[in-house]
């Protein structure tokens, strides 16, 4: 360890001797290899996609609430001009076109793309790639990621996937429309009447292959950085929890994503070369070719294979979505309750258990595939087991609040709202772990409400908390507190009005894929809960409006925000607050050594209520702390 310390310091001093030339515009802002710039690029791209994905949902909520009525004002005309006739139908009065509404096919397109964009292009890029890139190397005291050029390649691979996904909206027949899970055989045959490559379904797969490649490169980089580039003194027990969460997330991505990549390649083969990986023998699809005639495939494939490979990724993916969020909340709660995290070791142990179990629970998404009792029992058991580490995490953060001197600034508001929201999301998931309940609940709004509580007021609130918390570090300016609080209370109220009634609707049997919210299907059974549709849609639009406050705050603060009073405006302990704001190339202006754990707040006998990790223990002269060459 002492040797490591010396080598690290040696390098650190080296850097500043010959690293004063500033990179040019392109190298600095666009093709940057600096982890902080790449983190910001990921975050900004991800935020843009988050808003795009939410925009698609707001349009879908219109057709859920109002069916085929024309969109208000010139919105319909604008949307029709952008997305074209494949997605927007003309609404006619007599012979006159009076407006445009989302078509039924358009509802499928937007539904599929909403899920894809939110999961793969919104939350993962922000929570994992964005915050992980920006914060994690700073927190472990590294000068950059272990492979800076690989980091850049990872971002640009992600960027290509973004371009492909956006592009897919504008090809004939519009974007993918077989759901974000892309289940075959539907995903194998959809859009086949258009060009072989340039159609929504195929472009979706190509985009996903690039996205997965980006995630894999990022995961390799994150793990290597985490293990290798920790500053001297940054032992495993002194790592902030956020870094542990990112490490585990990277492992999940590394091992869970490749099977989806192989599944995507198989699906590409089916779509481009006409193979039958997912095509069962004698499949008949009325919309394709002559009614009642089997499709022109040699057959012998298995649609369930896709589901296995997809959920082998997508269940760990759920933890990829939530773990960085939990990590951010942990940091913010510790800082703003001025108290160490309760049960740090239990939390780290819990995420290891969580990661391990998350690989053997996937088929609880597949109870409907006719799974037999043995397999079903296995997956029900592991699914119930995995709730234990999740509860440990939530409990530990909750107990950390106990007896703290809470500061309710904007990041803390979002972080503390995360706890009950994630709790609702998690607890409502437990019934779904059981086959008997799930067969009834499958594909109803209950499931939608459950996982949206986990990711929307869960992870996305954590992301907002993170943005408000680390914005001063990234930009050197504070975000506006008043606008931030307005954003928080508006979001909290609207998001609960949006998702809470979904539990009611789901338990009554409202199906997630009814484009008009159920008005034309099975009215007799779901009638009593359909009136919630309009209320929920209005809540969704209100939620969208509230986000504008955030956009304004984000942009305005960048130029007009209050300058940070010092490098550590929140009086936090972790290493990222030991650098200037924004941190320069190479991050730390002095050699950094770690002397203490991550959450030494309110240490008895200390002269202030926080002891930064880089602060030597009382009585130790700073010079002696740098170990001699061993």
């Amino acid at each position, binding site marked *: 360890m002492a040797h490591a310390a010396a080598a690290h310091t040696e390098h650190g001093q080296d850097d500043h001797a010959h690293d004063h030339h500033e990179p040019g515009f392109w190298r600095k802002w666009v093709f940057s290899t600096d982890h902080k710039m790449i983190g910001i690029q990921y975050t900004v791209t991800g935020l843009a996609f988050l808003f795009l994905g939410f925009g698609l949902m707001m349009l879908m909520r219109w057709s859920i609430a109002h069916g085929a009525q024309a969109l208000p004002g010139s919105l319909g005309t604008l949307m029709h001009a952008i997305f074209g006739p494949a997605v927007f139908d003309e609404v006619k009065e007599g012979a006159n076109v009076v407006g445009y509404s989302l078509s039924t096919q358009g509802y499928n397109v937007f539904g599929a793309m909403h899920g894809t964009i939110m999961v793969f292009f919104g939350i993962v890029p922000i929570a994992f790639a964005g915050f992980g890139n920006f914060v994690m190397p700073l927190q472990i005291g590294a000068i950059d990621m272990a492979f800076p050029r690989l980091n850049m390649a990872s971002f640009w691979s992600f960027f290509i996937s973004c371009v492909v996904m956006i592009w897919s909206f504008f090809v004939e027949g519009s974007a993918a429309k077989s759901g974000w899970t892309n289940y075959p055989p539907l995903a194998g045959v959809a859009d086949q009447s258009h060009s072989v490559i340039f159609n929504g379904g195929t472009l979706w797969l190509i985009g996903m292959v690039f996205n997965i490649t980006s995630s894999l490169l990022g995961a390799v980089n994150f793990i290597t950085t985490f293990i290798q580039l920790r500053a001297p003194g940054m032992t495993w027990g002194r790592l902030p929890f956020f870094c542990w969460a990112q490490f585990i997330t990277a492992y999940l991505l590394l091992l869970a994503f490749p099977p989806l990549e192989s599944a995507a390649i198989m699906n590409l083969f089916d779509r481009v070369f006409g193979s039958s990986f997912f095509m069962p023998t004698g499949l008949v699809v009325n919309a394709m070719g002559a009614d009642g005639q089997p499709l022109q495939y040699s057959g012998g494939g298995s649609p*369930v294979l896709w589901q*296995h490979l997809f959920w082998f990724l997508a269940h760990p993916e759920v933890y990829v979505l939530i773990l960085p969020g939990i990590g951010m909340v942990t940091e913010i709660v510790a800082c703003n309750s001025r108290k160490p995290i309760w049960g740090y070791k239990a939390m780290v142990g819990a995420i290891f258990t969580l990661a*391990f179990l998350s*690989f053997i629970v996937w088929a609880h998404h597949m109870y409907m595939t006719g799974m*037999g009792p043995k*397999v079903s029992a296995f997956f029900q058991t592991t699914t119930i087991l995995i709730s234990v580490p999740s509860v440990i995490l939530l409990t530990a953060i909750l107990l950390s609040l106990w007896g703290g001197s809470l500061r309710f600034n904007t990041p803390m508001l979002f972080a503390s709202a995360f706890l009950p929201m994630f709790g609702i999301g998690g607890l409502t998931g437990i019934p779904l772990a059981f086959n008997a309940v799930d067969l009834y609940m499958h594909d109803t709004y209950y499931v939608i409400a459950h996982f949206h509580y986990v990711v929307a007021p869960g992870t996305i609130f954590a992301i907002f908390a993170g943005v408000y918390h680390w914005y001063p570090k990234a930009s050197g300016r504070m975000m506006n507190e008043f606008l931030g609080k307005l954003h928080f209370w508006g979001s909290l109220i609207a998001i609960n009005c949006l998702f809470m009634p979904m539990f009611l609707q789901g338990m009554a049997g409202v199906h997630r894929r009814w484009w008009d919210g159920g008005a034309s299907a099975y009215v007799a059974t779901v009638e009593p809960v359909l009136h919630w549709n309009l209320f929920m849609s209005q809540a969704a639009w209100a939620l969208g409006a509230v986000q504008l406050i955030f956009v304004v705050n984000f942009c305005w603060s960048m130029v007009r925000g209050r300058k940070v009073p010092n490098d550590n405006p929140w009086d936090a302990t972790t290493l990222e607050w030991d650098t200037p704001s924004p941190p320069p190339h190479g991050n730390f202006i002095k050699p950094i050594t770690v002397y203490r754990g991550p959450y030494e707040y309110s240490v008895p006998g200390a002269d202030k209520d926080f002891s930064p990790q880089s602060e030597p223990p009382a009585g130790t002269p700073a010079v002696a702390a740098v170990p001699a060459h061993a």
Partner: protein
Amino acid sequence: MADQHSQPPAPAADHATDADPHPHGSGSHGHSYLHHVRPYLLVGAALFVFTLITVGLSYVDFDHIFGSHGMNMKIGMAVATFKVCLVGAWFMHLKSEKSSIWLPLGFTFFFCLGLFVLCLLAYTDPIHSTSHPQH
């Protein structure tokens, strides 16, 4: 750390597999080189031989001999796994590698096996009371 730049011809003495005590002076290149690579050549030869064995075994009808289905596949996979272990242990140096390398790798193989086994389990455990059209 600085001396690595100044003397490129010096043999690297710090490698993990570099366990033999003989000094490699510039004069004894030939001998120590052969000494070093002998295990690799042996493993390579073993891989050649086992490839031929695999090919040969595939023409023996083990299903018939053992009276059980899929025996050829099981035996073929066993030989392939053995070959893979040879490559992993010697060519990829896993036999002398640190636990920080092979531990995560072990998890990887575990999850990979989990993928196979659980998929197979799901495949072989359908609900029997519903009708499955038989061809």
